[in-house]
């Protein structure tokens, strides 16, 4: 679960990580009042959307009067912000965060994440952070410093101090960095985070550290033990179809093509999308039916495909087995076709447990469906069908 900057900062402050004073608002008037209440001489007005590189897209504005804060907030609120990470449609700005501006003598990068190959929590840092960190890391990976946290003993004070020294911090700043690292590690553990990223961590002219921007992702699988954090999910910022799919035990990601895709299993779904692209097709989505999906959930998922006006043909690729059987999927599809009507060509590849039964069910229910024997054949058939519909 992605958190907004303002939520992440509020949480991280509780763990002793210093952040600038700020307030989240949803109108220009509130923004002016927030700036006045916060005090100071200049402010940053920051769009609260779930996407990085907001800076590059004009989503972060500086203002040196409360009127200018209002103007900046007015310009951002209600706009769709397109950053390199939002896709072409961009994200609607519904909230902005107004905070006291902090000048930085140097911008540091500091993050905590799970190093997957070690299976341990690690701190990652670089002397010079900023919004282009990913590009610079790719160019010079050796500038990235890593400190692995011992799973038994946690972050040791001495190791943290050494790590801070390697970031070019000394004196009070080094001591402060150690406290910040300890805070991040504790937050990571206590909140079940999967990423906490401070970028930049500003070293100010007076030699102290402040988290200027924070990105935090919480582990969805651990939310069951964090009822208080689950409410932070910003459902309005998610794609509405994706949100709906979550309720049907489906993994769904919206893509921009015209071939509706329904597959069981994430790997087979990825492979099917790749295969369609290779054969000249354009998938409209990535849909992975989870193994425990019921007939009704499959029907709801299929209705999502039918509800996408761009969809010109549908491919269902099921490898029955594990828990999900092909007949369950067939019954779901038949139910959706009965209630919504099937307006586009449907290609079904049903292999594995009860594949034959699935074909029988669809035929018996009078669903207009073409059957494919292999995944390659299915991809060719649906790509041709979608091309014909589009022409």
């Amino acid at each position, binding site marked *: 679960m992605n958190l907004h900057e303002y939520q992440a900062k509020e949480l991280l402050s509780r763990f002793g990580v210093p952040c600038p004073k700020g307030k989240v608002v949803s109108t220009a008037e509130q923004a002016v009042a927030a700036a006045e209440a916060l005090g100071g001489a200049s402010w940053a007005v920051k769009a609260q959307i779930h996407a990085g590189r907001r800076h590059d897209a004009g989503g972060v504005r500086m203002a040196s009067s409360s009127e200018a804060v209002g103007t900046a907030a007015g310009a951002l609120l209600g706009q769709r912000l397109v950053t390199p*990470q939002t*896709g072409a449609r961009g994200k609607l700005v519904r909230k902005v965060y107004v905070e006291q501006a902090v000048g930085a003598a140097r911008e540091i990068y500091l993050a905590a*994440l*799970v190093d*997957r*190959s070690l*299976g*341990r*929590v690690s701190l990652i840092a670089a002397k010079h952070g900023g919004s282009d960190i*990913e590009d610079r*890391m*790719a160019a010079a990976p050796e500038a990235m410093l890593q400190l692995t946290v011992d*799973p*038994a003993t946690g972050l040791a004070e001495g190791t943290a101090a050494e790590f801070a020294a390697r970031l070019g911090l000394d004196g009070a700043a080094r001591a402060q960095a150690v406290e910040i690292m300890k805070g991040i590690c504790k937050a*990571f*553990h206590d909140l*079940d985070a*999967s*990423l906490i990223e401070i970028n930049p961590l500003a070293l100010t002219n007076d030699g102290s550290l402040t988290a200027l921007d924070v990105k935090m992702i919480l*582990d*969805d*699988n*651990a939310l*069951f*033990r964090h009822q208080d954090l689950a409410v932070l999910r910003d459902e309005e910022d998610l794609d509405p179809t994706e949100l709906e799919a979550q309720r049907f035990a489906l*993994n769904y*990601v919206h*893509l921009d093509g015209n071939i509706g895709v329904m*597959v*069981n*299993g*994430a*790997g*087979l*779904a*990825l*492979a*099917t*999308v*790749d*295969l369609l*692209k*290779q054969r000249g097709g354009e*998938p409209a989505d*990535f849909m*992975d039916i989870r*193994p*425990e999906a019921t007939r009704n959930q499959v029907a709801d998922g299929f209705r999502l495909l039918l509800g996408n006006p761009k969809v010109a043909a549908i491919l269902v690729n099921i*490898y*029955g*087995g*594990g*828990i999900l059987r092909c007949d369950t999927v067939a019954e779901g599809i038949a139910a959706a076709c009965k209630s919504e009507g099937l307006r586009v060509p449907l290609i079904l590849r049903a*292999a*594995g*447990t009860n594949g034959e039964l699935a074909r029988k069910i669809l035929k018996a229910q009078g669903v207009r469906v073409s059957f494919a024997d*292999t*995944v*390659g054949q299915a*991809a060719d058939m649906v790509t041709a069908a979608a091309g014909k519909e589009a022409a």
Partner: protein
Amino acid sequence: MAILIDNDTKVICQGFTGKQASYHMERAIAYGTKVVGGVVPGKGGRRHLGLPVFDRVAEAVEATGATASAVFVPPAAAADAIIEAIDAELPLVVCVTERIPVLDMVRVKHRLEGSGTRLIGPNSQGILSPGRCKIGVMPAHLERSGKVGIASRSASLTSEVIEQISAQRLGQSTAIGIGGDPVHGLGFVDCLELFFQDPDTDCVVLLGEIGGSDEEEAASYLKANRSRKPVVAYVAGVHAPTERRMGHAGTVNVFGQGGAAEKIEALRAAGVTVATSAAEIGQTVRQALRAA
């Protein structure tokens, strides 16, 4: 022959009486797997599927001589169940449970170090050796006994590839689902080592996907081991949007690493034959065996 399991593997199931566990253990028994009992805290002394149920793993091991466990325990309790199996010194633990919190798996990973237990999963479809043994949820359908080893991050794709390999009149020695989660037990490198040592495996197939670094690690390992059995790989997600969780929690890219293109490049550089299309993995295996 097979790796990790054989006709003599004695299996217990943790979370035995659950719906999913019952369904799959029944199928495993029908397949010929030697299932010897189950563990469900509080239900010790009962019988389920005609087999004894125990409160603790250690008791089950002592009474049955079990050598492997299939973990079907719900996510909130799954890590502790795995740790209990490690403490009982079971040589093999297969965890089917998906959606285990990642920090729980960090804890498990730490407990695995220095233990004699090998963990497959979590979020794994299990392990299958055709005609010998099956632990987990892998469907028994078109598998044939043969000499191709499979290690996979994705369940349904494994079934697809088993079918393609069998259609080539080849068969499988062992198929292992290493699981779709970011922190897991056995990785590709472990599987490669085991398959290379197995006299009855002639070729290894790695089924990878975006995210993580299992493929890159396999590539570095293979680069250093040039004289070996042929390896074929497929990496799903070439056209997937980055920074999104594509079904498996393990598919999220951090820092633009873990892209399919980089993985394919690394594997090719290590002398692996990479199938570019999911429809042609079986054929690619046949060609690799012919060339070897």
